């Protein structure tokens, strides 16, 4: 039930089926009622016709006139489905039975008193269903003897059932088609009504992937509030992060300037105590540096504009060449054209800066940076960055350790330590991946997978 349209369709489909079901049952019952009544009427009509046509024979039996108005000819055709008999109150005395009943045994039931009527369903010998109607009549014959006779007519239900089923088929077929048409209409309406929701979803995805900075306008009244609030949230979040970083920058400046003053004041002194204080100043500085860097990394934010990675790497390469001008090294950068990082400029600069710095520090003379896009990876890991060097590398045993979280700033980790732990934290913030491998150049290869496009 995680789809609105499925919910809507189901919530409409269930009452629809119940409504149609009940309607069908009611219609079926009333149709059966009507059909039964008309069957009984026709049976009654036959009985009346039979009574009118019945003539007592000299031997005491009855013989209805062969052709008389209202009497069905089917009565004289054997096995026609319409049967009749006349019986008296004495058991086994059946003065007349229709020709149609010849060769079949039909139990017309016991005789009934004069003036009574009776209807009941029965089964013929061959198993076919019958409806039997009977009427008790009191006759006074020529000898003025009163004779009570019971006139019965039986009809098979074959035609009745056929009618009933035809009616049911039509009813069900009609409702089935109607349901389909209604559902199709509903599906269409739901699609139409939910199309702004779909658009909202698409735009949010675009914001997530960094192809849009905020949501567009023109939403229906019910959704425009959501869209506006989301936009406010997006922009607010971005501004908040910016302010946060600014104040962190000010804090860093505020803390480090006095440290710098202390440092330069102490440098002039030669005592043992001054040396201790200088060491502590360096330690404080390292802690401030580490914690501020950690706090300042922004991580993935919605609506971040993607940024070209190549100019950034060109600048960083120049900065590295400047920093390592006393070491003869070659830094080669190759970037797949138009590769973009989706995230904060400060974060990616810090990531690449730290990794390239490590590589330059540990290499013999070669550092290689490769940036490619993996279009089949999920958006959060689409940008692949490999940074390798020809230095001593990182042994397998050390790989887990250098990535450990919360490595304290004053803990002197040899090799790629501190920088890498921080890089890993930032990569985690973006839902990316970091792997340490052995480079074909001989040293370490750090592979990052980050949000990109």
């Amino acid at each position, binding site marked *: 039930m995680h789809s609105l349209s499925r919910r809507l369709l189901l919530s409409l489909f269930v009452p629809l089926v119940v409504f149609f079901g009940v309607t069908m049952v009611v219609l079926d019952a009333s149709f059966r009622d009507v059909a039964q009544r008309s069957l009984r009427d026709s049976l009654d009509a036959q009985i009346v016709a039979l009574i009118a046509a019945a003539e007592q024979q000299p031997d005491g039996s009855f013989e209805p006139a062969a052709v008389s108005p209202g009497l069905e000819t089917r009565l004289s055709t054997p096995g026609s489905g319409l049967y009749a008999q006349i019986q008296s109150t004495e058991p086994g005395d059946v003065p007349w039975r229709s020709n149609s009943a010849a060769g079949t045994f039909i139990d017309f039931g016991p005789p009934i008193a004069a003036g009574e009527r009776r209807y009941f369903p029965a089964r013929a010998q061959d198993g076919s269903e019958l409806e039997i109607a009977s009427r008790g009549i009191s006759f006074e014959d020529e000898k003025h003897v009163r004779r009570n006779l019971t006139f019965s007519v039986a009809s098979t239900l074959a035609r009745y059932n056929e009618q009933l089923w035809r009616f049911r088929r039509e009813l069900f077929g009609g409702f089935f088609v109607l349901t389909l048409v209604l559902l199709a209409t509903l599906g269409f309406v739901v699609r139409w009504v939910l199309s702004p929701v779909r658009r909202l979803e698409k735009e949010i995805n675009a914001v997530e992937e960094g192809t849009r900075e905020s949501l567009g306008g023109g939403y229906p009244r019910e959704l425009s509030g959501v869209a506006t609030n989301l936009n406010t949230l997006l922009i607010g979040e971005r501004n908040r992060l910016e302010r946060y970083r600014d104040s962190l920058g000010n804090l*860093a400046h505020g803390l480090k300037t006095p440290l710098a003053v*202390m440092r330069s004041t102490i440098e002039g002194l030669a005592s043992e105590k001054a040396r201790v204080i200088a060491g502590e100043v360096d330690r404080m500085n390292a802690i401030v540096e580490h914690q501020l860097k950690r706090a300042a990394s922004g991580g993935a934010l919605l609506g971040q504009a993607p940024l070209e990675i190549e100019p950034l790497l060109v600048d960083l390469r120049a*900065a590295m060449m400047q920093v*390592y001008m006393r070491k003869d090294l*070659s830094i080669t950068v190759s970037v797949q054209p138009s590769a973009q990082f989706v995230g904060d400029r400060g974060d990616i600069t810090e990531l690449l800066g730290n990794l390239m710095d490590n590589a330059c520090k540990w290499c013999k003379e070669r550092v290689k940076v490769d940036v490619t896009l993996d279009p089949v990876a999920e958006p959060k890991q689409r940008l692949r960055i490999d940074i390798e060097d020809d230095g001593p590398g990182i042994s397998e045993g050390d790989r887990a350790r250098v990535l450990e979280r919360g490595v304290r700033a004053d803990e002197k980790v040899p090799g790629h330590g501190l920088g890498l732990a921080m890089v890993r934290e930032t990569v985690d913030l973006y839902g990316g991946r970091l792997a340490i491998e052995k480079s074909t150049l001989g040293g370490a290869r750090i592979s990052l997978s980050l949000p990109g496009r």
Partner: protein
Amino acid sequence: MRILVVEDEAGIRESLREDLARVGFNVDLAADGEEGLHAGTQYPVDIAIIDLGLPKMSGLELIRRLREKSKTFPILILTARDRWQDKVEGLEAGADDYVAKPFHFEEVHARLQALLRRSGGWATAELVCGPIALDTRRQTVRVNDKAVDLTTYEYRLLEHFMLRAGQVLTRTELSERMYEEDVERESNNIDVFMTRLRRKLDPKDELKPFETIRGRGWRFAIPRTKAE
């Protein structure tokens, strides 16, 4: 040597003034960005130290303005935030090097020396000698518009030659330039770098950018075609 120090923190400004004066600089001081801009444009400054977090006008803005006014003296940035982004932005704005706070004065002094020795400084964003183009901002080199991958030493050697196109440079001079404090290195190394540089720039031996002057050194033979 006249040096401009733009730093808002009085303590650091004073200790820098003292230390710089001690090693022989003639120091001008400024406490904020606007003062810095004034001093940088009015006085014949040879080199400047600029703090990034300045009141009134940020250090980055100050550097940009100075470069706009075609001030080409080398600039060393002081930055409290030891972030790569600040370094990259600083270099992009037109600074030449940077030192993070808190610093050892020896470090600052060494960087200043290196910048002064480089001379020419930020004089040109791009040096072009015939088919050879050197981008001092990006530290990249192109020959006939094709990127050539140079190491740090090779790049600096070429930059040195191109800044002094036409001049004869001795092995000793080049050694000093390359190794700075470590001049004791074998000067043979320079020959190794020259060979490598020739091979990379001119693999088919058509351009002949370096002319060997027997007994003296080398001369960059292609004249500067463009200097902006």
